[in-house]
């Protein structure tokens, strides 16, 4: 996981979320770890060939709670991906569940491998 250092404007730590990309026959599945992010705090933008994912995580602390030890902090997640031309941009699907964003990027119909019938003559 790569880390960008603290940004003075926002005072929030910036993270580049870990992402898995799995290819299947019909398209690409992307899985992104966004712990602490609710649906309202997530935005997905598609700017021509760039997919931009940005989110904010916020932990709610109990009243009077003090940290004894802290290994993770709230922050801003942001990551960009360049989308290949084979992706059907109109039909990208996104689903956020248990802090994991699942994206499905279908391949365009015409680039799917086709079996060519061979006729003997």
């Amino acid at each position, binding site marked *: 996981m790569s880390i960008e250092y603290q940004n003075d404007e926002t005072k929030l730590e910036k993270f580049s979320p870990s992402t898995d990309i799995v290819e299947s026959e019909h398209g690409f599945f992307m899985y992104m770890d966004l712990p602490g992010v609710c649906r309202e705090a997530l935005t997905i933008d598609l700017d021509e060939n760039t997919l931009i994912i940005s989110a904010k995580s916020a*932990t709610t602390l109990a009243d009077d709670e003090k940290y004894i030890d802290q290994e993770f902090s709230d922050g801003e997640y942001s990551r960009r991906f360049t989308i290949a031309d084979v992706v059907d941009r109109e039909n990208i699907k996104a689903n956020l569940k248990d802090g994991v964003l699942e994206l499905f990027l279908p391949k365009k119909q015409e680039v799917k491998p086709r079996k060519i019938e061979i006729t003997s003559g």
Partner: protein
Amino acid sequence: MVIDFGSFYNFPYEFDKIFHDVFNPHHYRRGKASYPPLNIGEDENKIFIRAEVPGISIDDVEITITAKDLVIKGERKLPEGRYFRQERPSGIFQRIVSINTPVDANNVTASIKDGILTIVLPKSEASRPKKVDIAIG
């Protein structure tokens, strides 16, 4: 800090952390620490343990409390397929938190929301500081 009278006995870990920070001062701990990362907090009556466990449901996690420790165990399975890129950690994980304070083990609650596991341990009566009036004669 020589002797810690806090709710946790974490000295060996703290020592490692200091040692690590001295030699790698610019490395933020995220991503380097054990999996899953934990935040531990307390207020007067409760201890809160939070862990980042995206994609893990409460059924995949086993939480055990012994006399001194809280053990969080689980396995993270990733979908199978042809991976183009794999950055997310997977596999079996276990974290042990040593607790220095007696807790009411029967009333521990655990929940997962948006990939954050929260465990609440109520401190037992005996561990709360009591005010003793001293009569000055």
